[in-house]
């Protein structure tokens, strides 16, 4: 059976800790995640939001798993259009694997999209830009 997940893998020349910081700190996400600042206490069951410059949320979710600097799982609801905000939450998993010293594989999986087809259509190219931007930002640091 087909599963409409989106999976992105990229190799990044950096440490797991630096990549983790890039995913979880607002100063970093502003550089590559559509100018949004991530806000969360990063505790399981807690909230997470990606905030626009005006303080509104572009997306939000709940922290399902947080295992620094290896694995972060949150639910995901896009808020930039009512069509998307009304779809049930999907799930985003960030996994970091250390391949060699200062060389990691980052895998981003956006799944549970079966009942969120509009979200799936809209986020695909966005993730490509985010992930490529994340690598550029981290490797330039």
């Amino acid at each position, binding site marked *: *059976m*087909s*599963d*409409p*997940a*989106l*999976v*992105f*893998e*990229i*190799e990044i020349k950096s440490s797991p800790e630096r990549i983790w910081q890039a995913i979880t700190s607002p100063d970093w996400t502003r550089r590559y995640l559509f100018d949004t600042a991530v806000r969360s206490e990063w505790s399981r069951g807690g909230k997470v939001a990606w905030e626009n410059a005006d303080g509104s949320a572009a997306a939000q979710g709940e922290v399902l798993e947080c295992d620094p600097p290896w694995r972060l799982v949150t639910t995901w609801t896009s808020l930039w259009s009512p069509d998307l905000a009304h779809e049930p939450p999907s799930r985003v998993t960030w996994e970091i694997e250390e*391949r060699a010293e200062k060389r990691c*594989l980052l*895998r981003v*999986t956006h799944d549970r999209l079966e009942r969120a087809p509009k979200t799936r259509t809209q986020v*695909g190219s966005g993730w*490509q*830009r985010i*992930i*490529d931007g994340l690598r550029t930002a981290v490797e330039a640091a």
Partner: protein
Amino acid sequence: MLAAMDDVFRALADPTRRKLLDVLHAEPGATLAELAEPLDMSRQAVSKHLAVLEGAGLVACRWSGREKHHYLNPVPLVAIQERWISKFAANRARRLLELRRALEEKEDEA
């Protein structure tokens, strides 16, 4: 994993492997059996092609239980685009492709 660009072009040079990517684009998460069937190929043959695609970073895999699911990983293709095509040029190129598609559809109708 993301390999050298040589591996990406080598993987894309084969029509069967491009067809596999087409199937994965349409059917994300397809298993080996699901990929072998529409291509009318043995699982062993498909498996070899998948290994090349995985080695080039074009296919990412996920396990659920004993089932291995395959996904098209677009990141190496984006890297190729970023290398030679600026954002501005990408928009113009896209419009030209849309124009061609529109013209060809007209031709089909005629």
